[in-house]
């Protein structure tokens, strides 16, 4: 394929993409002349060039399209969706032909007469003499403005002065005169347009020749030539207008069409341009172009005509010169070379690292810097604005909106956000799919929207922005959100989960099922979506490039997809770790933090329900043991006390930790894709060669998490497994069982314990007779349980309870187990220190009253410490905790006071209401539901029914948290409804409530 054709194809493809988008915009705002100008110009160019290159199909189709566009421009044709659809069809046809051209180098055979006929019909048909003639030959030679009357040209007054363009001026005058008369009617006869007619004749004659060869000389086109000459004279005085064509001399479309050609590569230009003014005039039932006569019009024309063969001049002086077209393969090669450079640099650095004194160090330093800069520069070349991926969307949305008879608006924000070319390619399809989804399933019909009180037009918003090494792309719609009930029924019908499992899931969790393979809520496969291709493929594609996608939905309000993708793929920083004796790389971006763990340190891996977890600050982190996953031998198999590391990562909304044997350092690595034979293995996302020449695999954190099953049911924290909201009677609690001394088993609710520690007896010191130990730079008092004792030597276990910066340690002899079960405490009335006894794990166990011991350590543990806060303000919010069970009051009260509340308890709803009558006031009320006498729902109704506490936030605590219960709670007046033992959820809920109640004054009178 020759270069000329290649260039044509490239430029035309670009133009077609722009035309698509512009047409959709134009349809939405038909009064926008600028857009139409653009479109017309682009189509016109394609027509002209294809004529010159001898591509008849293209020429004919674009010509017919151009006619219709011209009519839009002159207001002779109303911009209707039907009309635009046909134009779009024409554009599609052009795309097809271009496609065929690309493949074979010549136009594919085909018949466009039906399409052209359609276009003609829209155009009101019937042409006028010159145009058909023009069809056959790219009559480039003469600017043949068959000037037509300008119909009610709104605001397009041609110039009045002669300005040195006699012939042109005459034409203009003819036109003006005609314009004054009214809408344009094509005329065959002279009818008062002598100059025009002459030109026309020239053209017709030329057309009949079928020559299609541009001529510079008069070559039988005297009138035309004169105009041309006038024009070239004008050229010098004009600024180059390539690309802009803003001739504000009131000239309608024509000039722009003429300006455009200037951008064409040299050879095309001359004939092209010369043709342009003529074509611009494309006479037609009102596609008038007095244009050619306009002086301002043709600097480029003149340019081109004058320097037949050197229109590049114009191009150079314009913005086009600022950028260069580069072959993609060249960039790829460059990228690979840079990759190799980075690797070699790494190798050198490695070699020099060992030696302190080396003459290589300094130059290597420089090489290092330079390599980094080159790397960054080359990576920038791969960056493209994301709007390139969005280019097709306006058209798709438009078509969808017609097809489904919905009004849809597409907002695209952040189109300039740049991302790697490779990534761009990969997300194009997922993006399209999600937009289709929103349009098809998300948005309601017009009627539906009105009913719901929403504006008629549904809005789909695309938003892209950078955030810390990632690019975030959101696709939002203001439709009906995900229909949870439908999703549920599909889950059940496809047997993806059982009823019981569903009942325990939050709406958010249920929503995630949409990403499961084979899932589609479409009742029937429309041509738009529901093809079974599905969101699972979308998610897989996005995860393949190291990203993830999340769906949140608000019923009735809309849904939002949020895609998160790492910015570049090729060269990344990675953490080198060891697992099972082999080294692996983890991309730095996936690493939140590193924690050193060992059996002897304060960071220990504990097991809850067979799931290894790490207590990290306030949450429990589920862990995955990498060597185990890889079926390798972990370092702690031989030596259980060996130090290992946890790499904390985040996948979507789930944070988890990866246990590895060792951590080395961070290196920059070049990511090479794995061989096809290894692609099936989900835990690898690539491989690389390290500085020392060794090949290592790059781990895919997503993949590991899914293999380990941690992602099957997205859970925020493992504490969910501990808080089992089962529907059986009784509450399941996690208990730490231990022996304080002797063989008596005792237990404490795990939720209360801050940490488990082991201390040496020698560390215990005594201050005014009380045992304590230095702990994290403070003194921590130690308490022994009744009957237990603190030994002066040897290792002892401590259960650490903490509140703010106060901590107390309960000494126990041995820790037996962590058990989760329903707790049935048989209360014993008067043994201090014990809440009672229960059967735990099959054995009789005392349940400790933690509060008792804490007050032993600090008598004022539970009372407010506002005096200590110094600033005098009562920062503690007052909380009323209503629960009939002393055990649970005892359990929850310390939790809340640790969180900063002043806790007052009531053991029944009636008690609480009595407090209200006594004038007590609270900032928040937490209440149990299952209580004898007045239950929680009734309590809430009472509270809400009376002005005194009506506005106090109320949170329900219960072991029963099904949808129905929540509903009931809400309608009774609770602001929130939380599972009883999920400490963090409770605190979250409280925080949320307080944010809403920001105005509630903290000063209350007790």
């Amino acid at each position: 394929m020759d270069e000329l054709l290649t260039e044509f194809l490239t430029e035309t493809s670009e133009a077609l993409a722009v035309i698509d988008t512009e047409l959709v915009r134009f349809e939405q705002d038909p009064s926008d002349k600028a857009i139409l100008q653009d479109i017309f110009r682009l189509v016109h160019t394609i027509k002209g060039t294809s004529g010159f290159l001898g591509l008849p199909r293209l020429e004919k189709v674009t010509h017919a399209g151009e006619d219709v566009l011209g009519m839009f421009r002159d207001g002779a044709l109303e911009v209707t969706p039907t009309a635009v659809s046909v134009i779009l069809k024409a554009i599609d046809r052009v795309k097809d032909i271009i496609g065929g051209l690309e493949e074979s180098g010549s136009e594919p055979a085909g018949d466009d007469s039906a399409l052209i006929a359609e276009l003609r019909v829209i155009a009101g048909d019937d042409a006028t003499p010159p145009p058909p003639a023009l069809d056959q030959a790219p009559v480039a030679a003469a600017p043949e403005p068959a000037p037509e009357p300008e119909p009610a040209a709104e605001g397009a007054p041609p110039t009045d002065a002669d300005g040195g363009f006699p012939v042109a001026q005459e034409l203009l005058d003819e036109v003006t005169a005609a314009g004054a008369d009214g809408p344009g009617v094509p005329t065959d006869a002279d009818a008062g347009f002598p100059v025009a007619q002459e030109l026309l004749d020239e053209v017709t004659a030329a057309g009949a020749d079928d020559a299609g060869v541009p001529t510079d000389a008069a070559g039988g086109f005297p009138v035309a030539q004169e105009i041309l000459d006038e024009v070239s004279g004008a050229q010098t005085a004009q600024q180059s207008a390539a690309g802009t064509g803003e001739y504000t001399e009131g000239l309608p479309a024509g000039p722009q069409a003429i300006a455009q050609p200037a951008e064409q590569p040299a050879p095309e230009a001359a004939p092209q341009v010369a043709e342009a003014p003529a074509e611009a005039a494309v006479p037609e039932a009102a596609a008038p172009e007095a244009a050619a006569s306009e002086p301002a019009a043709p600097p480029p024309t003149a340019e081109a005509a004058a320097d037949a063969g050197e229109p590049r001049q114009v191009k150079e002086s314009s913005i086009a010169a600022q950028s260069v077209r580069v072959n993609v393969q060249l960039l790829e090669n460059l990228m690979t070379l840079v990759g190799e450079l980075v690797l070699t640099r790494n190798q050198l650095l490695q070699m020099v690292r060992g030696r302190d004194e080396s003459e290589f160090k300094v130059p290597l330093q420089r090489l290092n810097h330079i390599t980094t800069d080159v790397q960054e520069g080359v990576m920038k070349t791969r960056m493209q604005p994301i709007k390139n991926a969005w280019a097709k969307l306006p058209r798709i949305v438009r078509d969808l909106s017609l097809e489904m008879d919905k009004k849809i608006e597409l907002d695209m924000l952040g189109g300039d956000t740049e991302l790697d070319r490779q990534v761009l390619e990969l997300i194009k399809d997922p993006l399209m799919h999600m937009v289709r989804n929103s349009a098809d399933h998300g948005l309601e019909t017009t009627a539906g929207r009105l009913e719901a009180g929403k504006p008629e037009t549904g809005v789909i918003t695309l938003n892209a922005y950078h955030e810390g090494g990632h690019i975030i792309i959101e696709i939002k719609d203001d439709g009906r959100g995900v229909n949870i009930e439908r999703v549920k029924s599909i889950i059940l019908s496809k047997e993806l989960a059982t009823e019981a499992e569903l009942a325990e899931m939050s709406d958010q969790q249920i929503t995630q099922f949409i990403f499961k393979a084979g899932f589609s809520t479409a009742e029937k496969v429309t041509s738009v979506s529901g093809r079974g291709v599905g969101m699972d493929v979308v998610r897989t594609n996005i995860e393949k490039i190291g990203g993830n996608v999340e769906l949140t939905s608000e019923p009735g309000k809309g849904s939002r997809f949020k895609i998160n993708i790492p910015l570049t793929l090729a060269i990344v920083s990675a953490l080198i770790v060891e697992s099972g004796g082999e080294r692996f790389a983890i991309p730095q971006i996936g690493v939140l933090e590193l924690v050193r763990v060992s059996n002897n340190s304060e960071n220990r891996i504990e097991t809850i329900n067979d799931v290894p977890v790490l207590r990290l600050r306030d949450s429990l982190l589920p862990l995955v043991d990498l060597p185990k996953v890889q079926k390798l031998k972990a370092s702690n198999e031989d030596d259980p006390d060996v130090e290992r590391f946890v790499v904390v990562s985040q996948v979507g909304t789930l944070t988890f930790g990866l246990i590895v044997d060792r951590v080395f350092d961070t290196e920059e690595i070049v990511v090479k894709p794995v061989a096809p034979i290894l692609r099936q293995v989900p835990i690898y996302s690539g491989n690389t060669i390290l500085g020392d020449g060794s090949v290592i695999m790059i781990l895919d954190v997503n993949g590991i998490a899914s293999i380990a099953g941690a992602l099957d049911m997205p859970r925020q924290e493992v504490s969910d497994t501990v808080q089992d909201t089962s529907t059986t009677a009784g509450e399941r609690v996690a208990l730490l069982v231990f022996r304080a001394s002797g063989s008596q088993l005792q237990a404490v609710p795990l939720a209360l314990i801050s940490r488990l520690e082991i201390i040496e007896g020698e560390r215990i010191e005594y201050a005014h007779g009380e045992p304590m130990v230095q702990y994290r730079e403070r003194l921590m008092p130690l308490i022994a349980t009744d009957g237990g004792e603190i030994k002066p030597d040897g290792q002892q276990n401590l259960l650490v309870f903490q509140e703010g910066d106060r901590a107390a340690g309960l000494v126990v002899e041995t820790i037996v187990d962590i058990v989760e079960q329903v707790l049935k405490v048989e209360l014993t009335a008067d043994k201090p220190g014990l809440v009672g006894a229960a059967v735990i794990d099959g054995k009789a166990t005392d349940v400790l009253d933690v509060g008792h011991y804490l007050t032993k350590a600090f008598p004022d543990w539970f009372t407010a410490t506002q005096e200590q806060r110094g600033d005098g303000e009562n920062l503690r919010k007052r909380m009323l905790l209503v629960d009939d069970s002393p055990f649970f009051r005892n359990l929850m009260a310390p939790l809340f006071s640790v969180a900063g509340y002043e806790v007052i308890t009531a053991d029944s709803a009636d008690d609480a209401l009595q407090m209200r009558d006594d004038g007590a006031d609270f900032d928040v009320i937490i209440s149990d539901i299952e209580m004898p006498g007045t239950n929680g729902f009734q309590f809430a109704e009472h509270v809400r029914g009376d002005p005194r506490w009506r506005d106090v936030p109320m949170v329900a605590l219960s072991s029963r948290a099904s949808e129905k219960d929540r509903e009931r709670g809400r309608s009774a007046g609770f602001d929130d409804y939380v599972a009883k033992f999920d400490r963090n959820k409770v605190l979250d809920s409280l925080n949320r409530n307080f944010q809403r109640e920001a105005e509630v004054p903290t000063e209350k009178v007790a």
Partner: protein
Amino acid sequence: MSETTTSSGQSERATKQFVTLTIADQLFGIPVLSVQDVLASQPVARVPLAHPVVAGLINLRGRIVTAINMRQRMTLPPRDDGSEGMSVVVEYQGELYSLNIDTIGDVISVPLDKIELNLATLDPLWRSFADGIYRLDEQLLVILEIERLLDLDAAEAA
């Protein structure tokens, strides 16, 4: 390996050249044009959880090459004599693969019409990646077809 000679007087026969190699005492041949490299034993990076046929990855002048355990591929017992073996590097669909074999032999020319396609005598697994058999004086040479050898998906299905 003896070379076959065309008998004089006959028109020239078309021949193809093969690199011969031995795995577990069986002789195989790979078209010489498919062979990119012959390597001595290399340090291999293991890939946990990979298909058992994948011995690991090696670094060949800066390119990552997948090492294939041929004995595993052919369901032959692993090498037990402690020798290191060698490997033959071939290309398949743009990727390089290093086939771990026992020893490498000469390059021989085989007349195309002497290659027997009746493979009924072969183990069905071998039949799946053999392109023919050539009878040498003392042994059979099994000609390997690289595409099918490395197409594990088809192998799984078989």
